[in-house]
């Protein structure tokens, strides 16, 4: 059950030039939050629609939200200061299944944050592959190193970690048979490549999808994602049935 609550901003920390980590006290949401779920936040009177933001971490009665300022709404959000109050709806959606003996988390860019809480909640051996454009855009490296057994960083320009896409280290780990489950979040082309690679190795892959939203709770049907389940086509909804889907269910 989602809760509608007013959360007090406790902290706003700069992670990169455009990305901030907001800690928001929202007990009712923190208590129920599961990895991969998101919240729907009102971003000032000038933005009509709420903005969906993933739950990056939970500690005590607070949730951490990592926000990249991309447009009017996220820019407003990134500028919130301690003591500001946010109108938040959540936790929403279906998150990751973090079961399995050896879990491999694969994140790209602003898709990395929700994987942190998944890493913390998972019980097995945890590895993470985190891809970014360039060194100064790297997010949460320390946090992942603390939560995982192994962390691999890739950058498009080779300024840090391995040069190239997340799929190169992913393939090596799959070759080694080092994963029983892959959990991925990032841009759609990355998700598709990760899912296709994992499926070649017969490793189940969960993907966290993005779509533009209205209500955020499953009532308005705008956030459609087509799936094929048991041979049948369905129109599912990212906010309620997702954001996490089984890779093989998504019609790519």
């Amino acid at each position, binding site marked *: *059950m*989602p809760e*509608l609550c007013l959360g007090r901003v406790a902290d706003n920390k700069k992670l990169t030039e455009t990305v901030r980590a907001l800690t928001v006290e929202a007990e009712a949401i923190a208590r129920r939050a599961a990895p991969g779920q998101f919240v729907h936040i*009102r971003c000032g009177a000038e*933005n*009509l*629609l*709420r903005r969906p933001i993933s739950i990056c971490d939970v500690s005590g009665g607070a949730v951490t939200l990592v926000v990249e300022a991309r447009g009017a709404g996220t820019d407003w959000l990134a500028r919130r200061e301690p003591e500001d109050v946010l109108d938040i*709806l959540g936790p929403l959606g279906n998150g990751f299944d973090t079961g399995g003996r050896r879990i491999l988390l694969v994140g790209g860019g602003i898709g990395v944050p929700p994987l942190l809480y998944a890493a913390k909640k998972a019980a097995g051996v945890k590895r993470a592959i985190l891809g970014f454009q360039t060194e100064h855009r790297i997010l949460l490296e320390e946090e992942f190193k603390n939560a995982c057994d192994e962390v691999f960083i890739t950058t498009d320009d080779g300024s840090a970690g391995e040069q190239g896409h997340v799929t190169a280290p992913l393939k090596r780990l799959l070759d080694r048979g080092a994963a029983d489950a892959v959990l991925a979040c990032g841009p759609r082309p990355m998700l598709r490549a990760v899912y296709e690679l994992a499926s070649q190795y017969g490793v189940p892959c969960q993907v966290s999808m993005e*779509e*533009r*939203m*209205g*209500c*955020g*709770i*499953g*009532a*308005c*049907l*705008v*956030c*459609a*994602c*087509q799936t094929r389940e048991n041979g049948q*086509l*369905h*129109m599912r909804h990212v906010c*309620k049935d997702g954001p996490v889907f089984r890779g093989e269910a998504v019609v790519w």
Partner: protein
Amino acid sequence: MVAPQLNVNFAGVRFKTPVVAASGTFGFGREYGELFDLSRLGGICVKGLTVKERHGNPPPRIAETPMGILNSVGLQNPGADVFIEKELPFLRRYDTTIIANISGNTVEEYCELAEKLSEARVDMLEVNISCPNVKAGGLAFGTTAKSAALVTEAVKKHSSVPVMVKLSPNVTDITEIARAAEGAGADALSLINTLLGMRIDIETRRPVLKNNTGGLSGPAIFPVALRMVWQVSAAVKIPIMGMGGISKAEDAVEMLLAGASLVCVGTALFSDPLAALRITEGIGAYLERKRLDSVSQLTGKVQPYQL
């Protein structure tokens, strides 16, 4: 002073408050039902129903605009039979008025829907002849007086519950369509549905919506909706459910003064899921402040300038 009366008799159907959830923004009530008690609503217009299941249009189906949104859902719904079997019993657990919103590709489909749903004892039908997001049907019936009358008359014959016809703003003269629906036997009218609109992403040079165009709703359309309700209320005698951009109690009061007996709240729910409840409370407070004892005393009470 006793609390003002909020209940409304609308075409013979009782609404405990004048505030109704707008079709398509509220699903079948389940999701909002987790956030508040649905019995606090005057009524619920359910998501538009068709004879067969529809998957709707491909995403993106929504774009934000200045104080509005465009949607191109395309009438995704599980079909009337599934609604009757799985959703209506759930809605019936609440003390609120249930309105089935129906769309057909042909007049026969509208009739089949009217028959099934009135047999299933929904409280009222809302005949959607104004959906801008589907190729056949929908808007095709709502843009000429003749076809609007044709659908209305046929649905009336097949319905045992009161029939309300939902009008499109995408016409030259909405009063002409309103009169045609009234003449064909409509018990009430609802307006407005969304206004056709478009947005383009200047980087990709592609429309933001995969359907290219969509329907505009939200505060941006409120003045247009208000004007249309005012004009239609002067043109017909049957009652009107007014909607389009209502996001606060003051908007709702304006809509009632313009001639509506009920108001619908849609897009406003996306930013504030409790908007309908806040609007209901605000209407009550306005009535108290104005020392009026019933919300019905507001309907059509605007005093226009004589030109």
